[in-house]
Each structure stands twice: as C-alpha cells, then as structure tokens.
C-alpha cells in the first residue's frame, strides 16, 4: 500500500511517501504565505522526483498547523499523533519524543504500542522554538546552519533569558556589544532553548530512549544542550525534519 503524509508547519512544508511502511522519499520546502499551495507544491515535487503519479497514492494524511488546508488529504491529524507514529516507526523502542519546529515545541511520551500517552506544548511564546533561533541568527548576522558547529566550540556559554524572544534578542545585542564571542552567545542561546524545553519535558516525564524530531533537531548544539539539561542521551534520525510527514503517512496506512 502506498501512502503519503503532508506536514505543513509554520516555516516549512514537508511530504513523505511510503510503500508498505518503507520510506520511498521525502521532501522539504518553505511554506511561505499560502499554506494550501505549499502543501500541493511539495507533494507534487516529491512525486515528480519519485517519478510517480498522484493516482498511485492510496491514502494521504495531512498534519501540522496547516493540516486543514490540505484539501486533497483523506484525513487531517495533529502533529502530536503523527510525530509519535513517525518516531515509533523509526525506532519502536523510543518512549519520549521532543519535537521542536518553527513556531512550537512539544514533548510527548508513547507506550510500547506507539500510542501517545501524554504531551505538553509550549505556551504562547516563540522562546524555545525554531523561530526563536531564526531571530537570534538575524541578530548575530550568522547562518542558522552554522549554529550547531559554532556552539560546540564554546567553553563559556553566555547567560540568556528563556522567557521572551524579544527580550532575549536585546540581550544578545548587548552581549555582542560587550564583545562576547559569537560561539559563546550561540551556545548560550542553545542553553536557553534547552532550558525552556526541558522544563516542559520534565512536566510530562522523560522516559528513555529519547528521540528528537523537527527541523531544530538538525542543530547539534541544541541537541547537546538538551542532553545536558535533561541528563539523557538523545537520538536524532536522518528523517528528523520530515518525521511528522512520515508519521502522517504511517497513520494513512491505518485509514
């Protein structure tokens, strides 16, 4: 059975196609202004890459903030259930999942059957999300893709508040003017993200093994900071960013 999952996040749109639970391919694109169009585009691009026709897809599930705008999907499901399903598919041993996306971060626990047992999401603030990191990258005039490696070079991370994105940005600017190194500031930013997420994770109760998903999982600095804050090791799959879409395609198999 061939299924597809479409995950429309606030920053990126992702698509994945699975055949009998095997990943055939996946794709990431910017969401932009029009979520509906973004879902359609990323899906069509992926099909083209795979040299497949839309008619060969039997079932499609959409997820993410734009889930209801994907009109061609058979069903819309929340990213919480889909991230749980995706992580369970990648490693059925996993019990906790930390997903950090563009505008939200969430922590969920799953049972041995892959069912979500509990979850928590960030409060109404971008602190502790991908957007937070984007804002910081702009303030530092750095490329977000370099953040991970740069932060690993720091031995004295700066202290940055985790309460508010806007305040944190002005803190970063003042640290720059004080001549703190870019590496230390970035490491401090990662610690701030980690502290925000770890308190949420503790509320739900972290059970190992822990997997991190979502676009921010590509940032090794955040992963390390979270490991330190939670005292656990965290695995990251090569499909971390498209995990929601993979999970959606898994859920589509059960429709």
């Amino acid at each position, binding site marked *: 059975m061939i299924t597809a999952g479409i995950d429309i996040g606030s920053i990126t749109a992702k698509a994945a196609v699975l055949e009998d639970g095997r990943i055939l391919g996946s794709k990431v694109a910017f969401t932009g202004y029009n979520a509906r169009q973004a879902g359609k585009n990323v899906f069509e691009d992926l099909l083209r890459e795979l040299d497949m026709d839309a008619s060969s897809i039997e079932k499609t599930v959409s997820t993410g903030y734009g889930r209801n705008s994907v009109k061609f999907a058979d069903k819309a499901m*929340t*990213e*919480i259930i889909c991230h749980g399903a995706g992580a369970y598919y990648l490693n059925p041993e996993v019990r906790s999942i930390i997903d950090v996306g563009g505008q939200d971060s969430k922590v969920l626990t799953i049972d041995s059957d892959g*069912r*979500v047992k509990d979850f*928590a999401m960030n*409060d*109404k603030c971008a602190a502790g999300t991908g957007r937070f990191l984007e804002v910081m990258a702009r303030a530092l005039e750095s490329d977000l893709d370099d953040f991970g490696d740069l932060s690993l070079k720091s031995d004295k991370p700066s202290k940055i508040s985790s309460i508010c994105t806007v305040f944190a940005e002005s803190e970063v600017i003042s640290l720059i003017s004080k001549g703190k190194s870019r590496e230390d500031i970035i490491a401090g930013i990662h610690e701030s993200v980690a502290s925000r997420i770890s308190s949420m994770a503790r509320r739900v109760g972290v059970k190992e093994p822990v997997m991190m998903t979502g676009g921010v999982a590509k940032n090794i600095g955040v992963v390390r900071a979270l490991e330190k804050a939670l005292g656990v090791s965290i695995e990251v799959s090569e499909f971390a960013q498209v995990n929601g879409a993979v999970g959606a395609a898994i859920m589509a198999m059960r429709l």
Partner: protein
Amino acid sequence: MTDVDKEKDSRKIKSVGKMKEIMTAYYIDAKTAEQTGKKVAWITSGGPVEPLIAMDVIPVYPENYGAMIGASKMGGDLCQKAEELGYSGDLCSYARADIVCSMIDGGPIGGLPKPDMLICCNNICGTVLKWYEIQARYYNVPLFIFDTPFCHTEYADESRRYVRKQIDEYTNFLENACKKKFDHDRIKEVGRLSVEGQELWQEVLDTAMNRPSPMTCFDAFFHLALIVTLRGTQIAVDYYQSLLEEMKQRVADGISAIPNERYRLLWDNLPIWYRVKWMSEKFAAHDACLVADTYTSAWCGQLKYMDGDNFLDSMAEAYTRIYLNIGVDEMIKIVLEVVDKYDVDGFVIHSNRSCKPYSLGQYDIQRAVQKEKGIPSVMIESHMIDERSFSESQSETRIDAFMEMIKQKG
C-alpha cells in the same frame, strides 16, 4: 427549518428562556433600586449573600457581570483600557474589566448599578481585596471584608471562632448600612431556601451522570447564574426545580446534550467565556460531552457543612471551605471523586492566567488524575474574558491531539 436546525432545536434546553427572563428582571430590579428605595450591595462570587437577602438588599456580582462582558466579547477592549490606566495585564481580567466599566460608566447593560455598600469575601482569592478597596474609594461607600483563613487540610477551632465572630460583625455592618435591625427569623428562612437551592443545583448537575448526559458543562455555565446571584430566594428554588424536571424528562426521553456521546470529559477552572460556543462545538464534533466541571459545583460543594436549621453558624464553615480556599491535596481528592462519579474518559484543564488561585496546583492535580485514574488530560492556556490571550490554532491542536489520544486508547 433545515434538518440540522431541527435536530439542534430538539436538543435545546427549554428552561433557557425562563432563565433569561429572570436574569433580566433581576438586573432591572437592581438598576432601578435607587428609584424603588432599595439598597444595592456588590459582593464577591463566593461571598455569604444570605444576610443581604434577609435585609432586602439587592446583591450584585461584578464577577457575574464579568462573565457577561466575556460572553459579549468586550473583555479584550476593557482590559486594554485598564492597562492604559496602569493596571497590570497579569491582573485578573474580571477585576480589570470591572474597574474600567465603573470609570467609563459603560460595559454590557450600560454598566452595573452603583453600590451602596461592598461585601468582599477573600475565600476565592486575594485579588478581590484590592479590587473592592479601589471600588470602595471610587464610589465612596462602606466596605465589609469577610476574611476566611485558608484551609490547607482542616478547619481549625481558631478559624471557626474567628470566622464566626465576623458573622456578627457582618450583621452589625448591615444594620448600620441599612439603618434597620437584622431580622433573625428571616435569615432562617433565607438559609433554608439557600440550602434547598443548592441541593437542587447539585441534583441538576448530577443528571449528567446519565449516559448519554442530558447536559454539558457549557449548559451548566449558563444555568449557574441564579445559584450565584439569587441564592437564598424562592425564585432560585423554583427555577432549579423546573430545570431539574426538564433534565429528568430529557433523560427519560433519551434526549442527549450532544448528538453522539462517545466520550465523557471533565472540565477544570472557569469557562473561556468568549469561546463557550466554539469549545462546545469543537468537543461535540469529536463526540465528546463535557459532563462535569469543578467550577459550577463550587456553588453546592459545601452542602455537607451547611445546616438549614442553624444557618448562620454553619455558614461560617461552609464559606471558608470552598474549593478555592482549600489545599491542593484536598482539591485532588474532590477531582478524583468527580472523575469516578461522572465516569469520565479525559480531563480538560483550562490554565486560566486570570485566576491564579484556581490555576495554581493544576499540574499536581493533572499528575494525580493521570496516576490514579489513568485518563488522558490536556491543558489549554487562556484568560477567561480577555480574548486577546486566546490562540485558536494552538488550542485547536491541543484539543484535537487530546481527542486523538482518547480515541487511540479506545
């Protein structure tokens, strides 16, 4: 009428019309008090109202008015005005909105009638103290503060003596304010009616134990108004009598509150007044009926301490031991009982940034419910009447995920 409309119509609770009539008459009475020579007292929602009724004083509840502000979606604007005046956005949104309504002489129904006195009972929170002090200065009227010590676990003898003494001070205050003797025979009658009204309200809520339930907590939020405002009157007793009959009839006729009740949920905290309809439709679309809540039962939860024959004495204890004035461990016990009583499948927690005493301890309560009862829960963050703080897509994702969890559980 389309089929959908007809279907909806068949589920409507008929008593709604009667309730609206009573509330309109009540507010007309209060707003014309000056002409009719009656006195008006503003009182906090958890305050001992019976002595006022016994003295023929019309009680007016800024918090009930707050709910009205929220339901008419005026909360955001009013709260913003309060912030412009210098009140912090962290302050309870009822307090912010009410203070501004006084200052601009506006709000729903053209504002509340001016008070002749203020009765503030801090069994619900500490915010009301400052809020009522501000209003006492603004209207230049006497303020009576009824101080109820917090009951972590038990009602100590010191508390008992301390609170009981204040009841005499309260009646003295009323005698001075009304310039007439306190009627000790009348209070007995009022006390009896108060207990009777609360018993009936409890019975109404208990009809939700039926499967399917004839009412949701969203209905309870509405029908609650009389037990708050007209507690201790025959009007409230008669109304709840007829509402109870209607509920029993619905059960007998198999009329459920939502079309396909498959899941039963418990709500914690105040409603999100400007989103009641949205919420009720959202949950109904998931075949989920919110059969109980911790909020509306607060006006009948202390019945065990009340004694209709010895009302004034028992009132002291009953008003001190209300849900918001007890420790989290005690709250947990109550919530666990409710979970069993109404046989619920999930727990919806409104983390209400307005009401700190209600929202503090929710994580502990959540954990206890998960541990003891093994049911899923979800937390939604908001302010009860400040709609600027509500994020629809975030709340929607939480609710949808929560319902998916319950469905997965099977």
